Structures are given as C-alpha cells and as structure tokens.
C-alpha cells in the first residue's frame, strides 16, 4: 500500500493494491441468525410505524417504516422482526434499525413479476438497496439531467477491493446491467472505470472502459472526472450537477442479476482488512453483524481496538462491534490499539508536506489555520476548502500530526448547516412579511 523509501527525497508512494487474475474469489459467510437493516430516516414516531416487532417478513420483501416517506429497505432474510430502534451512524446521521431473526426460506415474489421487464420505475421501487446502493432516483430527475454514467470498478480508498472484485468476477452481469441501465434511462454514455489490471477482463465482455491510475487518490470520483475523463471540475459543484453520475460496478452487476433471475440480490462484497493490513474479500448477507464475519475469519478484537467501516484513508470508525453490513459497506478494517496513530494538538509548523502531497493544490498550511480558528467562511472563500476531494493525504503526511482531514470535513459540514439555517431564516422572514402584508390588506379592506 505504502512504498516507503529511506531516502525521503523520493516521496512515499501511496498506491492502490490491484486485484488480478490470481486473486482468489470471495469467501462466502454463512447467512446469519439475526440481521439488522438500516432505513435511511430517523425514527421519530414509534406509534406511526408501518411495521411492528413480531411481524413476519420474507426475503426480498420491501419494508417501509413511515407513511410520509417512501424510503425503504429490502429484507435480506425470511423471519420475524424482533425490534425496531433508532440508530446513529457516522457523523450523527440517524437511521431506523430493524432487527430480524432469520427462520424459513420463503421468498417474496413481488419483484419476480418484473423479471426481464426492466423499467426505471420498478428499478427505483425495488433496487435501491442492492449491494452498492445505487442512487437510481437521481437518474430520473428531468430538471437536472444526467448525461454520463461512470460505473466505478475501483474503490476510492486504499486496500478496499469490493468493486474490483465485482469486475473481476461478475463481468457478465455487469455487461447485462449496463445494457439494462442504458435501456431504462436512455443514457447511452456509460463507461466502466477500472484499474489497468482489470481492463482485459472487461474487454473480454466488450464493456467500454477507461483506465484509472493506481496511484492514490486517482479512484476518487472527482479525480476520475478530472484525470481520466479530462473534464474540468469546479470547486463546490457536485458531479451530478455536471451531469455525471457514479454507480458502483457491484450495483450494476446486482441489477443485471436481479432482472435475469427475478430475485433481488442480498449479498454484499466486503473487504475485511485485518490488523496486519492483509485483506480477505467476503460475501455476506446485508445486515450481518460485523462480529459474525470476524468470528468466521478467526479475527479477535480487544478492548480499544478500532473497527472502521470503509478503508484506512476515508472510512469511519464505528461505535459497536455488532455494526451491521450495509449495502454500501465496501470494507471493514480492524485496527489494533497499538497501531492507532497519535493525533496531536500541536499547531502547524509550516513544513509544507501537505502542500507537496495534496492532489488538487489546496493551500493546506494556510487553510488549516482558519479551520482551527473556526473561520469557515474565509476558509471556503479564500483558501479553497471546496476544492478538496477528501483524500486524507494531508493528515496522513502532517508532521504536526494534526487532524486536518477531520477539520476539513467538519468545516464542510458546518457550512452546510449554516447555509440551511440561513435559508430557513430567510424563508421565515419572507413568510412573516407576507403575513404582515396580508394583515395590512385585510385591515385596509375592513
């Protein structure tokens, strides 16, 4: 992953590891007794829940929790709901967690009606929770049309290999998935972004590819758009707003399989990164607690070890060992407490390491001073906060061991919050004005 040289002049090379022809296939983890599915909305009113503990569910059944929202999950096992609880994920994001105890092997057949009859509406209705969690709704927004779909065949983070595995082992479903996607969206510009080592696999199936360099962070979507597609990226403008949508190769393969078999795939490829940084790719039923997988692989965790959902550069530490595998959990990394890097509260010493490593020329040494002081607006206006592609390299190299990357994410998060608040306040002021005008009018009329 990191090729260090004793000669510091040669910068340590941070490289992706490649999945190649000799990589062994994914190890299947047996279906768990209990799964936890996370629905992407906060649990607000227990009494208004559409499902209840004790209800029976079938594999492939669509579960919605509230009348007000069409957000759903697809049950990945057949069995009985045992509990419904609020769940807080990374950076305070709130979910509704549904615990299901497995038992029985019936399969819900609602989706089978659409077998070989792909359409965007039934895809949106049933396939949003397939492995890789494709944002299918986004493809259906006539106001902000998507012109190009990039199928991501390479994981943005180091050591993570879920997407590469999908390409290595599922080229046929990917090909089918791409055909379906083109047909149901009418978007014909679809390419598969893969590392050079996987281009051959894709070409055997006649899939259009673009090759992504193996140097970190070239597989981050914004970097792919800039370096591989050769398009200019603009700070603060989302790729979707440029008409480009990224979908995981695993999702595409899952869509291909779903329409071929009339059954919604329920297994996710997960890269398990062990304490010694060796990795194993497993396939696990979505909702499987991480602990089950670790037990199957004979990995033990101790107090104060760290469990990370995602890879070493961009992942997020999770709160509990029973964290369930989500449709977009591409990796789980276990870190020994002895390997947890120190984070210091020293100030920037202006060594310039971050400057030499940032792939998009953010003046990190200056930016960080404003972020530390909480001056987020200056950071955004004058010090290129929004150019950052969130690769984490600046923190990785920082001589002062500052948590720069965390500062950056926090700042972006805060700015979104501030903007929302401002928008709300504006809306409230407008409403008040309108009410006043109405009142005046009423008084005049009277």
């Amino acid at each position, binding site marked *: 992953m990191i090729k260090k040289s004793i000669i510091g002049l040669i910068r340590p090379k941070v490289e992706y590891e490649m999945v190649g022809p000799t990589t062994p296939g994914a190890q299947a983890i047996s279906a768990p007794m209990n799964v936890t599915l996370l629905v992407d909305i906060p649990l607000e009113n227990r009494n208004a829940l559409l499902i209840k503990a004790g209800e029976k569910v079938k594999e492939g059944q669509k579960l919605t929790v509230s009348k007000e929202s069409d957000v759903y999950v697809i049950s990945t096992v057949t069995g009985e709901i045992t509990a419904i609880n609020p769940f807080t994920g990374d950076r305070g994001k709130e979910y509704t967690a549904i615990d299901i105890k497995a038992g029985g092997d019936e399969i819900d057949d609602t989706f089978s009606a659409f077998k070989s009859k792909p359409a965007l509406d039934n895809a949106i209705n049933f396939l949003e929770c397939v492995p890789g969690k494709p944002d299918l709704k986004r493809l259906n927004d006539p106001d902000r049309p998507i012109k190009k779909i990039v199928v991501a065949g390479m994981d943005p983070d180091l050591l993570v290999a879920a997407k590469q595995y999908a390409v290595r082992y599922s080229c046929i479903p990917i090909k089918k998935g791409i055909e379906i996607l083109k047909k149901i969206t009418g978007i014909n510009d679809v390419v598969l972004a893969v590392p050079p080592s996987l281009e051959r696999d894709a070409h055997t199936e006649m899939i259009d590819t673009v090759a992504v360099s193996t140097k970190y962070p070239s597989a981050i979507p914004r970097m792919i758009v800039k370096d591989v597609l050769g398009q200019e990226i603009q*700070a603060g403008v989302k790729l979707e707003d440029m008409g480009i949508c990224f979908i995981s190769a695993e999702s595409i393969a899952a869509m291909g399989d779903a329409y071929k078999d009339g059954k919604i795939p329920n297994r996710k490829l997960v890269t398990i990164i062990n304490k010694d940084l060796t990795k194993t790719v497993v396939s696990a039923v979505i909702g499987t607690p991480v602990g089950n997988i670790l037990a199957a692989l004979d990995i033990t965790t101790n107090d104060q070890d760290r469990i990370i959902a995602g890879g070493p550069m961009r992942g997020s530490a999770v709160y509990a060992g029973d964290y369930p595998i989500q449709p977009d959990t591409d990796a789980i990394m276990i870190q020994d407490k002895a390997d947890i890097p120190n984070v210091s509260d020293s100030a920037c010493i202006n060594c310039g390491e971050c400057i030499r490593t940032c792939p998009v020329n953010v003046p990190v040494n200056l930016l960080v001073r404003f972020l530390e002081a909480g001056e987020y607006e200056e950071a955004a206006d004058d010090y290129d906060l929004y150019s950052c592609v969130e690769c984490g390299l600046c923190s990785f190299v920082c001589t002062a061991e500052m948590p720069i990357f965390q500062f950056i994410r926090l700042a972006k998060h805060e700015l979104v919050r501030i903007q929302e608040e401002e928008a709300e306040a504006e809306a409230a002021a407008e409403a008040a004005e309108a009410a006043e005008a109405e009142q005046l009018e009423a008084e005049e009329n009277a």
Partner: protein
Amino acid sequence: MLNQKKMLVVSHPPFIHMGSTISKKTYNIFIVALIATLPGLYRYGAPAVGVVSLAVSSAIIWEYLMNMANKRPVSVGDGNAALIGLLFAMMLPATSPWWFVVVGTFVAVVIGKEIFGGMGANPFNPALIGMAILMVSWRNYFDFDAALANYTFETIKVYPMTAMKNVGPEAVSTINACDLLMGNLLKLQIGGIGATCGLFLIIGGIYLIIRNFIRWEISVSFLAGILITAYIFNCYDPAKYGSPVIHLLSGYTLLGAFFLATDDSSSPVYFIPMLIFGAGCGILTVLIRNVGMYADGVVLAILFMNLANPIIDKIRPKAIGKVD
C-alpha cells in the same frame, strides 16, 4: 443488538499516518547540527563547550518559563527550543561571555518565537533574531579576530569575512578552499563555533535533505545565489571582491544555507517561492558582504527574506476547481 459490548475507540480518518513527527524532525536536525559543531568544540575547547551548553539549556529554560507564563502545555519536549539554542551558539565566537549567550537566547526564544505564538508561528528565524539584536547592540563581540586572538591556529589565522572586508581578497588569497573545508581537523577557519567546519556542515546538510528534514530547493538556490553573485563581483573587480569559493565556504554561508534559511516557519512551502527565497538569501548575503557595512551578510540576508516570505509564498499553483 447494537448494544455496546466492547469499548471500541472511535475517531476520525485517516487511520494511518506516515510516521513523521515534529520531534523526529527537530531531533534529527539537532543531532546533525551538534555533530557539525564538534570540530569547533574540539578546536576552541572548554569555552566553546560552555557557550553551546549554556545556549541550549538557557533556550530550553526560556521556553519553559514562557509556557508557564502563557499557561500553555510545556513544549520543550519537541526539541525546538534546544535547536534554537544550538543554532544560536553555532554562530557565536567561543569567547562570548555568559550574559551575552543568555540574553541572546532570551531574544531568540521569547521575542523570536514565543510571542508570535510558538513553533510554526514565528515569521523570522528565532536564532537569527537573537543574533541580529546582539550584532546591532554589541558589535565588538563579533570581532572574531580580536575575540579569538588568544588562540593559536595553524593555518587560517584571520576571520576571512573581516579580512576580505578590510583588506581585500589578497588577505585571504593564501587560504585555499581545502583548508576552509577542513583539510585536517586543526585547519579550521576562525569564526562562529559551529560555522567553521564546512565539510561537516555540508555532509550534515545533505543528510537532512536526503531524509527530507530540510528542503533542497532552499539550500541549493541559496548556494547558487552566493556563487553567481560572488562570481559577478569577482569578475568585475577581482582585486576588490573575493572569489565565489571563499564566499561559499566561509562565514555563516553553509550554516545559513542548510540550517538557518531552512527553518520551516519562516520559509516558503511552494517550489518556485522556495527557489526565490533561497536565491534571495544568497544574493543579499554577497551584496551585504561586498557593499554593505557588515562583514557577514547571512544573518541580515535571511532575516530580510523572512520578511518577504509571506509575499513570495503567494506565488502558488491555483487550486484545482477554483472559481474566480
């Protein structure tokens, strides 16, 4: 489900680090600088050892007192104060009186660094601030010839910088580059305790560059600036101005190029700015030596470029995606 069974540490990405730290960096520079000082200590003996020890320890104490006064975490452990003390001592004559050293480190650590907010916030190289104030206030102590008159030396008996200034290059024509570089341990030039052994400074500097502790861009352009400017002067009037090699190997040139100009906080971080900064230091050094009023220009040249640093460092590549 989802109840916490084990305490798992929660924190933020990235979860790996390259392993470079402030203390590793400062200790490396400190040790290299100390090794480069050894020939000076050997030559000047006990008084030099006294000056170096006093400078290092008083710098640490000043920083500690400032930490206490500002109610900030004690930062002497990062080695930076010790390094400032050492670099300061390396520029001093071995005969400096104790109060001179202590006042110097006070100015360096307290005025040069702490009042700006500590390591990383100092706009000037702290050791040079200490030097500059002393040079302006007590100029006589820097008359290396007088200060070191009681020593007997085998070859180079004059401080080349002063000799060149007062007499002209012929005064130093007997000095060859090899002696300056230290042909044998005893043939050192007269000068600051740590500035006399060119060979050790160069080897140390190259080591620091290879290990990525200092930036080659600054050192190389500094030396190039010295050579080119001195060469031009020398061509113009060889009878009046010393040869580039003498300029390169004498005075504080090498100390400045590898240890002083490369201070992180007061030097640029971008490539072109680093080159401009280094070259500026070199050019100014020779200008001050040849036409200014001070015998050695390194101290003021670097301080002047420190002043210009924030402006020079504005020459930076545009962030990708920046909208103007």
